[in-house]
């Protein structure tokens, strides 16, 4: 196995594009190093992208935020502008593992690991985030929701690396929130995760909404029916009920020891209701 630490993105994509057998990008390593211990793990090349300059920065631009692929999640909640703009995304990143994990892990790694339970992914999807993908023949932008294609699988082609995540500048009166369910207080994989992003008009009516679910299907789910249910409302009880039901209806979870199908489906509805209320308050609704 070869281990490379290139210092440019070009070199990194070239290494990957030229690799003959299995190769992996390494960011924080919190997923990869655990997998590398499995007896059936195979790799010929590991490309560590942390030495590439500019990878470890969050930049605020006119259009929003550019989060480099090397930024550990601990750095996200130290960025006050980002916290003010996308509190839900930051709280999701803040839920990954523990302080000791967050010092290492990246949201891009969380996305590319393509676990259905990845915490930051529903929040990024609800926020309408875009992945900036570098490849041997240049860069392209891909909506975050289109990156994972199933458990452990992504749409990235050979030689491609996500260079950054782009978060738009939120419209006025916008708020987002992420809630997840785990059986203990911290340090566990989401049994259900729900992200809600709402924009209100001046009188507090929801005019735009995005609701995304994690851990209840093979990949993150953007629930249009749930968004439709809340648009035009002020989150009255019946609306919350409809939101909750449409989220439950969108779930296609598996049974495992962390939660049964019935449990996950029902909890998705409960969390959607609670996350929507938080997002609504954050957007300035009363």
């Amino acid at each position, binding site marked *: *196995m*070869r*281990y490379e*630490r290139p210092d440019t993105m070009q070199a990194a994509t070239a290494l990957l594009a030229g690799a003959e057998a299995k190769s992996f990008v*390494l960011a*924080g*390593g*919190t997923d990869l*190093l*655990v997998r*590398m*211990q499995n*007896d*059936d*793990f*195979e*790799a*010929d090349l*590991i490309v*560590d992208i*942390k030495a590439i300059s500019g990878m470890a920065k969050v930049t605020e631009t006119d259009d929003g935020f550019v989060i480099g692929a090397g930024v*550990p999640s*601990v750095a996200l909640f130290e960025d006050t502008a980002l916290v003010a703009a996308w509190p839900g995304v930051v709280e999701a990143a803040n839920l990954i*593992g*523990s*302080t*000791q*994990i967050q*010092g*290492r892990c990246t949201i891009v790694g969380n996305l590319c690991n393509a676990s259905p339970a990845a915490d930051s992914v529903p929040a990024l999807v609800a926020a309408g985030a875009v992945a900036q993908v570098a490849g041997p023949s240049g860069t392209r932008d891909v909506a975050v929701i289109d990156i994972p294609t199933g458990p452990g699988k992504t749409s990235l082609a050979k030689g491609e690396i996500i260079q950054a995540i782009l978060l738009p500048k939120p419209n006025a009166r916008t708020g987002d929130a992420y809630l997840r*369910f785990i*059986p*203990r*207080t*911290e*340090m*566990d*994989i989401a049994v259900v995760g729900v992200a809600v992003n709402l924009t209100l008009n001046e009188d507090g009516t929801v005019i735009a909404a995005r609701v995304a679910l994690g851990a209840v299907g093979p990949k993150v789910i953007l629930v249009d029916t749930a968004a439709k249910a809340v648009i035009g409302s002020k989150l009255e009880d019946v609306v919350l009920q409809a939101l909750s039901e449409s989220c439950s209806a969108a779930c296609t979870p598996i049974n495992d*020891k*962390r*939660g*049964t199908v*019935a*449990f996950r489906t*029902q*909890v998705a509805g*409960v969390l959607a209701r609670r996350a929507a209320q938080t997002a609504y308050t954050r957007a300035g609704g009363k």
Partner: protein
Amino acid sequence: MMDKQMAYDIISFQLNGQLVQTELNAGERLSAALRDKMHSRDVKIGCDAGDCGACTVLIDGAPVCACLTPAHQANGREVETLSGLFLENQHAKNLADSFQNYGAAQCGICTPGMMVSAVALLNNNPTPNSDDVANALGGVLCRCTGYRAIIDAVIAAGTETSPYDAKGHTGAGIRRLDGLQKVNGTEQFGDDIAPSDALVIRVIRSPFHRACFHFGDLDAWAKGTPGIETVLTCVDVKGENCFGVIPPFADQPVFAEREARFRGEAVAAIVGLASSIENFDESGFPVVWEERPPSMTVFEAMERDAPLLHEHRVGNIMCGGFVSRGMPDATLNNSDATVEGHFSTSFVEHAYIEPEAGFALVKDGRVEVYACTQAPVMDLDELEKILGMQRADIRIVPTGIGGGFGSKLDISIQPYLAIAALKTGKPVRITYSRTESMQSTTKRHPAEMSVKIGASKNGKLTGMVFDGLFNTGAYASWGPTVSNRVPVHASGPYVLENYRAEAKGIHTNGPPSGAFRGFGVPQAAIAQESLFDELADKLDMDRLEFRLLNVLENNDETVCGQVFAQGVGIRACFEGLRPAWQTERKAAEVYNSKSKILRRGVGIAGGWYGCGNTSLPNPSTIKSGIRQDGTIVLHQGAMDIGQGANTAIAQIFATTLDVPVHQLELVGPDTDITPDAGKTSASRQTFVSGNAARLSAQALRKDIIKLVNAPQNAQIEIGQGEITISDGDIVHRIDLALLTPDADGFVLRAQETYDPPTKPLDENGQGEPYAQFGYAAHLVVVEVDTAMGTTRPIKFVAAHDVGHAVNPMLVKGQIHGGIAQGLGMALMEEYIPGQTENLHDYLIPTIGDIPPIETIIVEEPDAHGPFGAKGLGEHVLIPTAPALLNAIKDATGIRITNVPATPSRLRAAIRMHYKEQASG
């Protein structure tokens, strides 16, 4: 499998302020590089997967798991570990003090991760609140302390001076005498002692719950595989290939011979160079498996055509225990009120943060085994049999132990170490991976319990019948003890004139169930204390007052017919809870009147526990002496597994001799030099070894006083090279230089044994099983989110009768730690072979799960205990789980009878309940 061809790189970084340089393998972890190449063995490995946080180090000031950090990424950066911080960082120094003052380090294996994380927090926020601390330390697991002492210690760091007690006699909550090494990173655990060039052992285990197997050509394989020195199998076991903690039931092979009876059972071991073992590909090992259908539950194993795990154990019944008095069936039939229920519990994993590890070598023809253990002399007994060697040719030297809780009473790595060292003639080491540790070592017995209890209209208990099946897994281990203890304890600390309890240990193809804090009693308490609440409700009585009406008092007969004239403290425990019971119930009622989805409830439960072996001899011996220079030496053979035996036993000794405890020099339980103080189990060390220490000190004191013919109450002072004895105005001096030292260098010595008085149980379980019982009662307030089925404990109040608190700080530490384990058992812990074999999938409580705990220490002196002291180590978790289940019932109206009460399970029960309510 990783490609074996490795690329090497050289990196350099600052380690604790010094520039270091090292060669790395591709993908090497920082934790491994620090421990193996830089001897930073203060960085601990508990899981190698980011789950436990024991490996936390600072990189450029930020806390990270070293086990998930590619060592390459440390290049050019600054890495700090506990030992460096302890010397240079003021916060670390303050933390080292307050961790000792608060007892925040018990076994100490989590302490480096805790302290390094806390330093990072304090560097940014010197005045954190408890939420800040919980956030910062949330990724570091501790299995001993229950976290509250850690939170308190971090908040107090740098703000308090240490409470120093000049004498440190019993009753004083002094710091642990062995505390410093736990907070400065120098404590040596099982994996910290081997020389780095020792050969490494790796065990080959069954991937199936049950399978036959045969080997290919092992010799050829070993010869043809670079770096492999030898392969061990059952043919290398020169003595008996059979061990077990209770000799008449010994049934476990060191290496399985034809059939593996549980997943993770050892069939062979390879021994080789560290680098070869590290990259060993198990798929190339010449073994062929033939899977067989397993019996995983007691019900499957008891079916008529179920295959027998051990031929001579008909029906897969290992053994049973029985206690009977009065006429329980008749009285239950005639009782005003009866309740009954069936309760099930799961395998529970001990989940100490230190996986089994050790090192062995052959020296002058003797084999020396250095390993973490709870019972060094029992290890010696087992090795004598397994190795077929003279006892005198085996030496067991216990290392620091990073938690045990019962599982490290059984041997695990010891035979592999000894056999490999003898076969190769070279130093060898072994460290279990987290998964190996979980798969192959003992568990708490899953129980299936059917129980019926009755009472009269006025609330007096009339009778009880208990029937329990305990899944003892593939091998006996401590199963017989569980079967015996449960019937004696299943009544709880209450008067029951009509009682029958039977417990059977049943073999299955699960992991061997053994000792885990309480030997089956916590499971039985779940059934009994749950049903007590049901019975009180049925009688429309207050649940606390109902218990008080039935508690054992001095001079009452227990269900075994045993009578204690003093020291029965359960009434005082429950009465201690009464104020909280009343205010918390009112508060919950007020809360619930305004809240529909979040419901609060209050639960209580009691418990008792007999200290020491059940009706069996159980001696401890303590040797002590004085050297010519005036040093007082205490051979403290009672393994300190974090509970604090080194401190408590020394306090008892110092109090009796009447010298300051800090003047003692402690010698540990090395089997070559320290007599047997028995195993650290059954809550016996403070009681039994404490008494032996008291007798040893008494004898020493007598001898000193005899030398000058002073009266027994004379004051003694042991100084440099002399002893001064003052009898009022008369002062005698003994010049120690004039006395002749013996082979140990002692000029005065004493060695005393204590064995608690018990009487055998007859065929109805009547007799005197224990010389003393300890008593406990817990109260807990919970908040249940009925929409999601989550239970959040908000507060515990724990009352414990310890007879005499030898060291109140250590007492609190045991109570907190026990509550955390009881909480885990009640709410989240469920070991499923093949599914939850790591700390990612097997959840234990984290720092955020444990609410504040108020402790009430009751001291009803015991007739036999040293200074009246009773054991405590296991009592602490017996009431916790039933108190939680009772609180859930109080909050929601739902009785959970199948633990753990996971959110999924509780939510499903809530749904059913509301459906039934709606349709009914």
